[in-house]
């Protein structure tokens, strides 16, 4: 299957390359035909009209891009099964299933009691519902036309489906920016680029899968509306933006990038009424629409992330007004400078006002995740919970290479071409490139937003290069050096080419046609006139084709090997190539579902919260929606303190079961011991007196679980739960008993007993271990059980005389007495 897909993709690369030269090719073909047989000329030209052929070829290429994009994401389904992957998708799947069963409004009001045990979670107000609604609508539609498909299948295949749509949106976007040929390249690139397919393989049912489509489509509509300045297109932009807001938190990228675009256009003196109309309408409509999402609410008018958009909106109004004033003023050109300076000052003042308001507390400050984009060390120091997520790590060169391969070389070239021939819309792609590449450097996760931009710019670079080099015929025919056509539109170039051919045709009687029949046999003297000989051009084209083929191979390899693992089903390969499936996670979750009481509370590290709730159907304390840091820190503290301390916390939190992931038996590296330091750090952030990170290191500052490891680590709950009775087990004849195969050490603390918890279940390969928390033991009897109890006489039956209540039996002490003739208030004083 892998081979099949590979060939499929490489063929698509070839296709797209063909189309890159298609206008030239077909015009050349037609012109040749005209020359060879002038009698057939009319017939052929009417049969194969250039525009018809172009659109046919682009249709075919786009279809191929769609199909290959869809197919290359199916590795995991073919290798394993149609299953939801990883962590977050499980929650999305669960809520989608809830929505299809109970309807949209019940879904919005859904209070999920399976999550965040004592607190619960109001799902409708804490998610972006676009994903669920999208799959719900598809589900509804398919059922309406009597295709009874399970919602899980829709969830699994939604991301590949939308990646095809992304290819189409990228095509439209690039077509607006540069030309149709570049658009076809871009569509082919984005369809298979690993940077995008990493988050959109079948089964990774996550917001990003549909959000990248919404992102590219919004950008396309925005470019269209800036170009035309029409109300229609900018309203469409706002609607598409609304969809993006409903789908993903990354909408903040749009609402900051578009204002930056507007601002830079103003600075570059490219202000126009088109810009004014499109931005004003987009901002107002987009603002109102985005506030309809319950999770977003009033953020667009209150938080710092959105203030740039508001500030630019105000600035644009001011600029438009001043621009109007120019028409009233003599010698406006001089005063323009002044006003321009004034506008800049006003911009600064607005910026300062936002800063002041933030400090004063009227505007919420940047949320930590965004703040860490600017101050890169911020998360590392202050918010370990953000820094702990592996996709929030900064990016290394390897990730750039793995995700983009050839495109990484072409990316700056495309940006350079755009800068050289700057127009309003190309300013946008340049800004996009600058910001996205910076953000991608800060967080691996944001490679996702960089990838479309890289694909677009690389396509532009390649298309411009091939425009010239793949055009072997024209340089030979024309006696004058061909000026490289910079094409604003695909149609323009086509008409250009047509004109040129027509011109050549008119000059038929000259000796040129004789040459044209046999290109490549030019005399040396005449070759000077042409810029580059056709041989060199052919070599260049072949080289580029080879590279593109290697790119396709690389993409397929990376997608299939690195990004297509469901991570809840693991596979290992033996030396003879046979495959061994490790299905411990589902085994454990199924056990939980079948063997524990229905309301049982399961404590685990937050990574597994969604999976336990989704597959095990049991209440969890913390999950992947990390909104409550202190709660997570409490769990982290329980995991990292010793058993007695942990038991106190566990009884406080009402925990019934504890679940840990342990990979030491089979060498699975993503287990809880490897994540353990983050638990300690997060716990330390909230409880600095009880938990200290240094205690868990050896004296050399290493994190070791063997004999030299720190005693605090060797006695903490997590260690004990992971390695309980592991010391009795010899995994391999060459290694001692209790040999951890993930960390390649013999564990330090082997023989210990558990006091407050007992082992409930351990899966086949020991990956998941579940423990039951014992109930509080009965109190021990005191040693002097038969003691003498000395009874004191009751204070109520004292014989001591109290004034006024003598001989009254059964009187409550200090009972207020009512004395006639006196006021209560007086007695008090």
């Amino acid at each position, binding site marked *: 299957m892998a081979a099949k897909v590979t060939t499929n993709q490489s063929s698509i690369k070839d296709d797209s390359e063909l189309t890159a030269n298609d206008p030239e090719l077909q015009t050349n073909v037609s012109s040749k035909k005209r020359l060879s047989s002038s009698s057939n000329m009319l017939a052929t030209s009417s049969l194969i009209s250039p525009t018809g052929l172009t659109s046919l070829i682009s249709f075919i290429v786009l279809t191929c891009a769609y199909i290959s994009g869809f197919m290359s994401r199916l590795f995991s389904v073919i290798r394993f099964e149609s299953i939801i992957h990883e962590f977050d998708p499980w929650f999305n799947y669960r809520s989608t299933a809830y929505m299809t069963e109970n309807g949209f409004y019940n879904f919005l009001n859904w209070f999920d009691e399976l999550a965040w045990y004592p607190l619960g979670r109001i799902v409708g107000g804490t998610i972006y519902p676009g994903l669920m609604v999208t799959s719900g609508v598809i589900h509804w539609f398919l059922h309406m036309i009597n295709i009874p498909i399970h919602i899980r299948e829709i969830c699994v295949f939604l991301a590949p489906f939308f990646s095809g749509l992304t290819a189409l949106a990228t095509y439209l976007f690039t077509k607006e920016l540069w030309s149709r040929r570049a658009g076809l390249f871009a569509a082919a690139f984005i369809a298979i680029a690993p940077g995008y397919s990493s988050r959109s393989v079948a089964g990774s049912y996550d917001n990003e899968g549909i959000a990248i489509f919404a992102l590219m489509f919004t950008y396309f509509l925005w470019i269209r509306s800036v170009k035309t300045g029409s109300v229609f297109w900018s309203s469409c932009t706002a609607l598409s933006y609304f969809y993006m807001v409903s789908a993903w938190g990354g909408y903040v990228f749009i609402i900051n990038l578009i204002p930056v675009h507007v601002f830079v256009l103003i600075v570059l003196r490219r202000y126009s009424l088109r810009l004014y109309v499109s931005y004003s309408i987009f901002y107002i409509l987009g603002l109102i629409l985005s506030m309809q999402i319950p999770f977003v609410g009033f953020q667009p008018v209150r938080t710092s992330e959105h203030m740039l958009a508001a500030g630019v909106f105000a600035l644009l109004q001011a600029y438009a007004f001043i621009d109007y004033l*120019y028409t009233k003023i003599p*010698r406006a050109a001089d005063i323009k400078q002044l006003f321009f300076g004034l506008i800049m000052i006003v911009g600064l003042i607005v910026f300062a006002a936002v800063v002041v308001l933030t400090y004063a507390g009227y505007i919420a400050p940047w949320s930590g995740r965004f703040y860490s984009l600017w101050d890169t060390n911020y998360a590392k120091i202050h918010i370990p919970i953000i820094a702990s997520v592996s996709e929030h790590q*900064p990016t*290394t*060169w390897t990730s750039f290479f793995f995700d983009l391969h050839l495109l990484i*070389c072409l990316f700056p*070239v495309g940006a*350079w071409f755009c800068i050289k021939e700057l127009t309003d819309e190309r300013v946008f792609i340049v800004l996009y490139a600058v910001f996205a590449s910076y953000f991608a450097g800060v967080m691996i996760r944001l490679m996702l937003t960089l990838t479309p931009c890289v694909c677009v710019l690389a396509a532009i670079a390649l298309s411009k290069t091939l425009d010239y080099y793949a055009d072997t015929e024209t340089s030979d025919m024309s006696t004058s050096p061909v000026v490289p056509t910079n094409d604003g539109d695909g149609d323009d170039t086509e008409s250009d080419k047509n004109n040129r051919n027509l011109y050549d045709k008119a000059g038929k009687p000259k000796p040129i046609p004789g040459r044209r029949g046999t290109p490549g046999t030019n005399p040396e003297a005449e070759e000077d006139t042409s810029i580059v000989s056709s041989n*060199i051009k052919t070599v260049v084209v072949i080289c580029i084709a080879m590279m593109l083929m290697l790119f396709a191979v690389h993409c397929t390899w990376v997608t299939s090997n690195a990004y297509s693992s469901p991570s809840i089903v693991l596979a290992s390969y033996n030396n003879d190539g046979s495959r061994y499936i490790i299905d411990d996670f589902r085994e454990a979750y199924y056990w939980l579902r079948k063997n524990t009481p229905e309301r049982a509370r399961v404590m685990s590290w937050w990574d597994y919260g969604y999976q336990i709730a989704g597959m095990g159907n049991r209440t969890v304390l913390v999950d992947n929606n990390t909104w409550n840091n202190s709660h997570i820190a409490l769990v982290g503290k329980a995991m990292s303190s010793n058993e007695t301390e942990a038991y106190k916390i566990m009884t406080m939190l009402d925990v019934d079961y504890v679940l840990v992931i342990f990979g030491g038996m089979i060498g699975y590296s993503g287990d809880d011991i490897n994540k353990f330091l983050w638990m300690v750090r997060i716990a330390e952030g909230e409880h600095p007196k009880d938990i200290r990170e240094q205690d868990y290191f050896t004296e050399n500052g290493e994190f070791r679980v063997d004999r030299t490891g720190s005693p605090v680590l060797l006695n903490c709950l997590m260690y004990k739960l992971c390695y309980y009775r592991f010391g009795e087990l010899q995994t391999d004849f060459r290694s001692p008993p209790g040999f951890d195969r993930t960390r390649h050490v013999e564990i330090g603390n082997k023989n210990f007993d558990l006091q407050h918890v007992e082992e409930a279940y351990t899966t086949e390969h020991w990956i998941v271990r579940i423990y039951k928390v014992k109930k509080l033991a009965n109190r021990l009897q005191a040693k002097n059980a038969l003691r003498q109890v000395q009874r004191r006489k009751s204070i109520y039956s004292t014989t001591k005389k109290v004034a006024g209540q003598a001989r009254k039996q059964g009187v409550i002490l200090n009972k207020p007495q009512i004395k006639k003739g006196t006021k209560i208030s007086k007695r008090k004083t």
Partner: protein
Amino acid sequence: MIPNAGIRPCRNENPAYIRPYTAKIRYRLQCRITASSTTGKYGQFTANAKSSPTIGISFLRLYKRKTMENLYRLPFTIVQCPNLKLKKPSWIRKPSNTVVLFGLLVSYFLVTAGVIYDIIVEPPSVGSTTDEYGHHKPVAFMAWRINGQYIMEGLAASFMFTLGGLGFILLDQTNKPNMPRLNRVLMIICSFIFILVAYCATKIFIRIKMPSYLT
């Protein structure tokens, strides 16, 4: 986009009839006759409207505009524009293309080198291992780890990326019309070498880093 203070066609005259006035006269003329913000289009529009059958609608619009213009013009009967002579500071200049390209490539080089990673994680510039004889040997690449790197390996790889980019830019420069033949050949050769070297070197790097790559 507004052709401000330019020569405008007057509404009452033929739009093609354009006559240069002195600034003062022009100003008065504008105030009196045309003061629309979209005068360029406007003149044409009226010209078309006169010949078109939808004359009623255009008159209605014209009327609306006129009243609005009167409203707009109101403050300018009182406010007089000050007579200013301004000069742009000479140091504000658009950067030349080469400067832009240079800045682009340098920043790109830094980002793809994972400099941000280096700042946050602070890895050593070059790693080291101990071989079986107990000698310390420098190691350039942190093998088997996609999410980790040494500073130098990042810079080296990123240099290769940028070199490849430069190769493509040179390839584009070769098709400038006026260039001596020798230069052109040299440039093509250079770009070929750049691209091939970049490609091969990156491939070798990734093989060192991930020995299982493409197997």
